[in-house]
């Protein structure tokens, strides 16, 4: 398989995730955009690991670490969003900013 297919897909996912982070007003959906960007990174890591045929499987092990960190990030992020919702009764980032 050509290495370009996963790389181009990951670029597209990163761009879409960036749009989501910048454009969505709901704080939970901003976190979803971050997850998409992290998935693009995972795709790159796995693609380069398979391309290198690395003995230590560096890319795939790092992908597992990234997935774990993303789970930790979304757990903490959603806790912060819930605390924000309790404090100001909205998760709209435009409303919160005012």
């Amino acid at each position, binding site marked *: 398989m050509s290495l*370009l297919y996963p790389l181009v897909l990951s670029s597209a996912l990163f761009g879409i995730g960036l749009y989501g982070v910048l454009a*969505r007003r709901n704080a939970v959906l901003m976190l979803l955009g971050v997850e998409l960007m992290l998935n693009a990174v995972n795709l790159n890591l796995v693609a380069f690991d398979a391309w290198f045929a690395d003995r230590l499987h560096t890319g795939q092990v790092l992908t597992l*670490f990234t997935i774990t960190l993303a789970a930790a990030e979304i757990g903490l992020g959603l806790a912060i969003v819930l605390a924000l919702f309790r404090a100001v009764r909205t998760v709209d980032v435009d409303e919160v900013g005012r």
Partner: protein
Amino acid sequence: MNLVEGIFVVFAVIASGSAILSMTSHQLVHSALWLVVTLGAVAGCFVLMTAEFVAWVQVLVYVGSVVVLVIFALMLTRQGGATTAEVTGNRWTAAALGVVSAVGLGATMIAGFDSERIEGRRIGTTGSIGDALFNDWVLPFEILSGVLLAALIGAIVVSRSGSDR
């Protein structure tokens, strides 16, 4: 284009299409559910790149728990029918930045790695990933469990501190 590349293109189209739908949908729960489709298609891409263990971890952790967590948060923070404008005023700036970054990254990749191929010589089975993880990556693994514990405690503290006031 051989069979693997054809299947990969199908998964890639599904993944990016549902990612776009997820980021533009006006129904909040719909965008979380479209994200499930994206993550599942990316897991399929992992299988095609000989990373089967990572693909199953992706299905278990992302599709299984992260999306459930997100749907919980969406339901807990629901405001009464206020789903009028789900995007901010700088939507077009955001779209332009997204397109610029995607095109820029894609062009860099194409310029750098055109004509390189994935041979699939070392398959990422559970056994080989476990060998690598517990022989060579033990210390990062242990540090990561500390990070995960800290994040867990942090999440509990943050979500409790508001409720007793």
